[in-house]
C-alpha cells in the first residue's frame, strides 16, 4: 500500500509506548497466572500489539471503541488505566466494574472503552449504535469495532456491516486476523479469499493490511477514521497478525502449525519496531529503555495494588441490575 507520509516523531514513539505497555502487561499477566497468584481466564494479545496502538493514535479520548475478550491490547492502547484494569481482572471492588464484569467485560467510558464483550461478533452491532448516536447528535465522534477473523463468519458481522453502510455510520470495523478462530484455521472455516473481500458485498472500502507493520497500520487506520469522521461512512480493515499464546492462556496450541508459529514469533513486531525507531533516529536506546523500565514498574505496582485491594461486598449482587 502507498503510505503518503510517516507520522511525526512523537506519534511514532507513542505507538511504541503503547505496544511495549501491551507486551509487558501480557508478560506480567502470564507470569502472575502461572504463579497461581491470580486464577483468571486470560486471552493473550501477545503478537497483536501493533494494531490497536496504530489505530489509537488516530483517535481522541472522546472516540469510542468496542472490543472483545481478547482485548487487553485494545483497552490499554485506548487508555484504560492500569490500576483499575488490574483491579477488575482480580475481581476487586476498585476495578473498572467493581469486580462485577471481569476480564471479558472491561468498561471504562472516560477513556472511550464502552464495551468489552465475551460474545464473538457482538462488538459490531453495538458499535453501530454508538456511531448512530454520534451521527444523530452530530458530535463528530468515531467508533472503532475490534473483532477477530472468526467473528467475520457470525451473522452479527453481516447485519452490522450492512446497516453501517446503508446508514453511512461513523464506524470503523477492524478485523484482527490472527488466522485462527478458536482452534480452527481460517482456511477451514471462511469462504472468503480474504475477509477484506467481504466489504465489496456491503459497498464499503475493504482494506487488507499487515497489522504488524506500524506504518501501514497507522496509514490504513488514519484513512478510515478520517473517512468516518467526514461522514463518508464505514470501512472494513483486515489487519493480518498472529497470536503467540494460544486461544485461551494455558492452551498449548497443538493444533497450530509449529513452523508457522515459530516464524511469527521470530518476526515479533515489537522488538522489530524498537530497532527501527533507533536505527531511523526517532528515539534513543536510553529513552526507550527508560520508558520500558517505567512501564514495567507501573504494571507491577498495579498488580500488587490489585491483589491487595478489597473484594466487593456481597450486597453488590443487588446493585446495578436496574437503575436505583
Amino acid at each position, binding site marked *: 500500500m502507498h503510505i503518503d507520509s510517516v507520522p511525526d516523531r512523537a506519534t511514532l514513539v507513542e505507538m511504541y509506548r503503547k505496544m511495549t505497555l501491551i507486551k509487558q502487561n501480557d508478560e506480567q499477566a502470564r*507470569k502472575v497466572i*502461572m*504463579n*497461581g497468584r491470580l*486464577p483468571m*481466564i486470560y486471552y493473550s494479545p501477545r503478537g497483536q500489539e501493533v494494531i490497536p496502538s496504530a489505530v489509537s493514535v488516530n483517535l481522541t479520548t472522546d472516540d469510542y471503541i468496542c472490543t472483545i475478550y481478547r482485548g487487553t491490547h485494545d483497552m490499554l492502547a485506548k487508555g484504560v488505566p492500569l490500576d483499575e484494569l488490574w483491579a477488575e481482572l482480580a475481581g476487586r471492588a476498585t476495578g473498572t466494574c467493581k469486580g462485577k464484569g471481569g476480564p471479558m467485560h472491561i468498561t471504562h467510558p472516560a477513556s472511550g472503552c464502552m464495551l468489552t464483550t465475551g460474545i464473538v461478533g457482538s462488538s459490531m452491532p453495538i458499535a453501530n449504535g454508538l456511531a448512530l448516536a454520534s451521527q444523530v447528535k452530530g458530535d463528530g465522534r468515531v467508533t472503532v469495532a475490534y473483532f477477530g477473523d472468526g467473528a467475520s463468519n457470525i451473522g452479527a458481522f453481516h447485519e452490522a456491516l450492512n446497516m453501517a453502510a446503508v446508514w453511512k455510520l461513523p464506524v470503523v470495523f477492524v478485523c484482527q486476523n490472527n488466522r485462527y478462530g478458536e482452534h480452527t484455521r481460517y482456511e477451514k472455516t471462511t469462504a472468503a479469499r480474504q475477509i477484506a473481500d467481504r466489504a465489496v458485498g456491503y459497498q464499503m472500502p475493504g482494506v487488507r493490511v499487515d497489522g504488524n507493520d506500524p506504518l501501514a497500520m497507522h496509514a490504513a487506520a488514519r484513512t478510515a477514521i478520517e473517512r468516518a469522521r467526514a461522514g463518508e461512512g464505514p470501512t472494513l480493515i483486515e489487519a493480518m497478525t498472529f497470536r503467540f499464546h494460544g486461544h485461551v*492462556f*494455558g492452551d*498449548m496450541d497443538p493444533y497450530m502449525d509449529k513452523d508457522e508459529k515459530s516464524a511469527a514469533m521470530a518476526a515479533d513486531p515489537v522488538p522489530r519496531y524498537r530497532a527501527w525507531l533507533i536505527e531511523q533516529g526517532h528515539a534513543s536506546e536510553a529513552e526507550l529503555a527508560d520508558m520500558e523500565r517505567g512501564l514495567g514498574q507501573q504494571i507491577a505496582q498495579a498488580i500488587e495494588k490489585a491483589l491487595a485491594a478489597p473484594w466487593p461486598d456481597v450486597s453488590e449482587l443487588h446493585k446495578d441490575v436496574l437503575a436505583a
Partner: protein
Amino acid sequence: MSVQVCLPKIGFSMSEGNLSEWLVADGATVAEGQALYALESDKSVQDVESPAAGTIKIIAAAGTSYPVGAVLAEIS
C-alpha cells in the same frame, strides 16, 4: 519473606490439576524462572516456573491432584 507457589489456572474450565512430578528437590536453591514441577491438566502437561529465587520448601506431593490456588511450596 517467603513466596508461595500456588497451582495456576491454565485452562478455561480447569478447577484442579495434577502435580505429576517435582523437578527440584526439597530444600534446593532455585532461581526465578527455573522449572519447579510438571503440571498436568486435562488438556496439557506444562512445566511451571519459579516465581522467585531462594530455598524451596516442598509442601505438596507428586502424583496428586490439587485445586487451583492450592499452596504447593514456599520459597524463602
